[in-house]
């Protein structure tokens, strides 16, 4: 389904990023996944080669412009310019606002939101030239609903949705689509860090009665990356078991 496409997925060493990297590769795309460490990048390369997929892992610090530039140069030389960009890298630094430190705010905005600006800008040159492209931003149900203790994360994730709509308007004439996928609570290291009581409480608010699996987010991303979704742009696809219905 994605033969000939070249996908870049940030934050692909584990969790949702890993699952959607493998799912894009399984559809025939050449994939590059990024990690913050050499070991993480090597792990991605290994996982891809074990599965017989084409691609590799590269190191990226999404907070540094120089690192983004270096990644694009290396990826383009090694695999080609990306035709699919999945902005997935993200962190949490939860705290009640009255206790939140500047560095907790800044880290989340920079890693989760400013990174989307940096990566999208870097990839657009090739996409506008090619007159095709897919940018898929992994936001969160929290960007739509808010969550106590996550003002920074909610602001960044809601910011991604606004960014997505604006960019979709800018580059639509070049057949480039820009969309969001908004996961609910997915069974990953990020949600495993939640206190047990909060996890139990959450389940009660999810009509499907369970956490989602990373592969269920990957399915939505593969769809938006595919030709089947060519007429969808500026949209946010919620994948959350019904806990929030946009």
């Amino acid at each position, binding site marked *: 389904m994605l033969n000939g496409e070249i996908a870049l997925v940030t934050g692909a060493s584990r969790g949702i990023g890993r699952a959607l990297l493998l799912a894009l590769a399984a559809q025939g795309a050449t994939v590059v996944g990024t990690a913050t460490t050499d070991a993480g990048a090597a792990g991605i390369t290994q996982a891809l080669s074990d599965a017989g997929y084409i691609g590799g892992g590269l190191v990226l610090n999404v907070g540094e412009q120089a690192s983004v530039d270096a990644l694009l140069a290396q990826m383009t030389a090694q695999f080609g310019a990306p035709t699919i960009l999945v902005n997935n890298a993200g962190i949490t630094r939860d705290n009640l606002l009255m206790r939140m430190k500047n560095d907790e705010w800044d880290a989340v905005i920079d890693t989760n939101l400013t990174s989307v600006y940096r990566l999208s800008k870097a990839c657009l*040159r090739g996409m*506008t*030239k090619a007159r095709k492209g897919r940018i898929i931003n992994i936001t969160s149900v929290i960007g739509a609903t808010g969550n106590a203790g996550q003002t920074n994360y909610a602001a960044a994730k809601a910011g991604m949705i606004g960014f997505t709509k604006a960019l979709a308007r*800018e*580059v639509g*004439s*070049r057949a480039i689509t820009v969309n969001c996928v908004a996961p609910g609570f997915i069974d990953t290291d990020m949600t495993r860090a939640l206190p047990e009581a909060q996890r139990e409480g959450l389940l009660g608010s999810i009509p499907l009665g369970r956490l989602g699996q990373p592969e269920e987010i990957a399915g939505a991303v593969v769809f938006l990356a595919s030709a089947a979704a060519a007429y969808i742009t500026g949209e946010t696809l919620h994948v959350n078991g019904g806990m929030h219905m946009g």
Partner: protein
Amino acid sequence: MSSVEERVRKIVIEQLSVKEEEVTPEASFVDDLGADSLDTVELVMALEEAFETEIPDEDAEKITTVQQAINYINAHKA
């Protein structure tokens, strides 16, 4: 190697999908050749690549006609 003028005209024709005879020296990219803002950004990118030069944003804004592009390249080419 063709002249700067020929190469610039060829890039304009390709980028803006216009006819050769429309690309006169005084033709404005936006007013005469139907370019939108994204087209002009792409045109500058294409010129940068073709002539291996960096065109700063403040200079790019001043390049609005075919002749201005030719003049700029002639003044700044590597």
